[in-house]
């Protein structure tokens, strides 16, 4: 049945798509609409908001204080995405070229973290990176070993080991976000690389190119759609990250989502929080629009 063209089969289409569409409208579009309306309102009492159509919230949201946090969030998210790409690409390549027997297990390994709640994973990472965590204990052991080696050759021992501050700073936020978002990068990369015709790689080698040039001239350009998809689905959630900077960040590493949270809770300024939220949504909207414009153009070129 040609369900592809839903206009020709309105009733079966409605039967299949009706429930999820209703769900989306009820629990996504309507609440978003309400928040959007709030962004044009003002507080008139502790729990009352009047939608007055004012643009004051947006004016305040675009003050440098908030814009700087927004840009910082964007920079952190971009850095996280870049690290995920640099780390994830070789991982995706390794899975693609692993033997048939190994591939499902490696993919399972990539998806395994999703079996655990984000909060639990974040706390687990924090115990690793804490002052008395495994990372510090490992570093301490290395330090003491080096110190012992120095005494062995008759030199002064090193000073006593002081734990490195790994947590509660921007570094911790970036590490935490990379940890959480890496699978989102690897999976689209893997699906793009897996679709790649192996004989293209062999043809490149056959024509005299080494592995590095084959990677940059053949594999990466052909995996570009996968790279773009991976970048988008890493960048967007990283930009809106809330839990990781909240738990792992210090006082100077709050991201835009933490500021928004504060408006809705402690500051009890819903209209301003709504305006900040929508500023973020507009930004993401532009990113997605640019991306689909780009892929639309390549699709047209291909035709």
């Amino acid at each position, binding site marked *: 049945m040609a369900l592809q063209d839903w206009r020709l089969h309105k009733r079966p289409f409605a039967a299949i798509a009706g429930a999820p569409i209703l769900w989306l409208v009820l629990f996504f579009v309507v609440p978003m609409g309400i928040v959007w309306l709030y962004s044009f309102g003002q507080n008139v009492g502790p729990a009352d908001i009047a939608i007055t159509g004012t643009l004051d919230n947006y004016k305040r949201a675009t003050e440098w204080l908030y814009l700087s946090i927004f840009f910082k969030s964007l920079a952190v998210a971009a850095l996280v995405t870049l690290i995920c790409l640099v780390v994830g690409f070789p991982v995706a390549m390794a899975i693609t070229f692993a033997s048939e027997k190994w591939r499902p297990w490696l993919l399972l390994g990539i998806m395994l973290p999703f079996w655990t709640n984000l909060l639990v994973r974040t706390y687990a990472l924090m115990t690793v990176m804490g002052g008395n965590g495994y990372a510090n204990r490992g570093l301490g052991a290395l330090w003491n070993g080096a110190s012992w080696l120095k005494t062995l050759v008759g030199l002064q021992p090193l000073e006593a080991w002081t734990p490195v501050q790994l947590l509660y700073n921007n570094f911790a936020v970036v590490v935490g976000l990379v940890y959480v978002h890496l699978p989102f990068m690897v999976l689209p990369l893997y699906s793009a690389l897996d679709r790649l*015709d192996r*004989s*293209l790689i*062999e*043809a*490149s*080698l*056959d*024509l*005299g*190119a*080494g592995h590095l*040039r084959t990677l940059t*001239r*053949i594999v990466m*350009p*052909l995996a570009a759609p996968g790279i773009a998809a991976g970048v988008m689905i890493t960048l967007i959630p990283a930009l809106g990250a809330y839990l990781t900077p909240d738990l792992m960040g210090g006082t100077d590493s709050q991201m835009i989502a933490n500021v928004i949270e504060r408006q809705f809770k402690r500051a009890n300024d819903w209209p301003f929080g709504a305006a900040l939220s929508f500023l973020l949504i507009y930004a993401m909207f532009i990113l997605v629009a640019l991306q689909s414009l780009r892929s639309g153009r390549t699709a047209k*070129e*291909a035709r």
Partner: protein
Amino acid sequence: MPEPIIQIRNVTKRFGKVAAVDDVSLDILAGEFFVLLGPSGCGKTTLLRMIAGFELPTTGQILIDGQDMAGIPPNRRPVNMVFQSYAVFPHMSVADNVGYGLKIAGVGRAERDERVREALQLVSLAGFEDRKPDQMSGGQRQRVALARSLVMRPKVLLLDEPLSALDAKLRSQMQLELAELQDEVGITFVTVTHDQDEALSMACRIAVMNKGEVAQLATPSDLYEFPANRFVADFVGSVNIFEGKLTLDEADRAAVDCPGLGKVYLNHGVTGPHGADVWVALRPEKIYLHVPGEGKAIRAAAQDAPEDHNLARGVIKGMSYLGDITLYEIKLESGAMIRVSRPNLSRRDQEDFTWDDKVSMHWRADSPVVLLG
């Protein structure tokens, strides 16, 4: 005798316990059109990929132009390959595809453009420089792949099932073009195919492979007319094979008694042990079909065999009219089936015989081939 450009010495390739290529030794001569022919899974593609360097021999040695290829990666071998899927880079224009290898080799822009133009001209794709691969037909893409390899001026061009993705008409046209092209550029071609027509029409020499081994290495006509064993006789062309006993074997004549076919006489010796179990292979086009009785007279008039030899009788059980020939399936008096083809020399020849007609057959004393294995 020209020098061998590729020497394959006792090469074995195992995948796990299976030997895909089993102790193969052969020489490929400079400038020849060499074909590796065999059914799928016979090891021909593995052998080709070992020459290209994509697979490494488990044991044995491959020499190209006298140089041992052990430890030399594909990108440093003086060979280029045309892939079965063509492997034309989809994100590059035709000119960039063809110029890719030259660019990697550091050939300057001006020379590169000139050589790309020449290569495209060679494969009749002049003017297609700016096209993208997805704007081209399968045949055109294949020409791009060919030009991309030829432009490198390799010592040997390897072709993996180069015509298998093309339709029949285009395939036979490309067979001729490939042979002409090979003649023109003078590069050694090594082609892998499972299509015997393709092999016969293009090759200087053919190595027929079976289960990882070379079953026979010969020129196309020798392969067809003098097959070395039942596998080759059966794989190359169509053939009737009957089991029999060697009853006579002298320098200038031999005879085999086949329970299925009758007494077979040959006008040359076969150097097999007397009384041995042998097989007689007889091609369908080498059997003459007659109305009953007539065969005996014609056979007798030819006087190339003793009485009652090289004669058979049967009933037509099947018939396929193929235009140029008609193919008959005939049930012999022994109950065995035999295939006979008959050229349609005039426009009504196919009406001479029909289903359930009783017929007699004869063949010349130089037509049957006696196979010992």
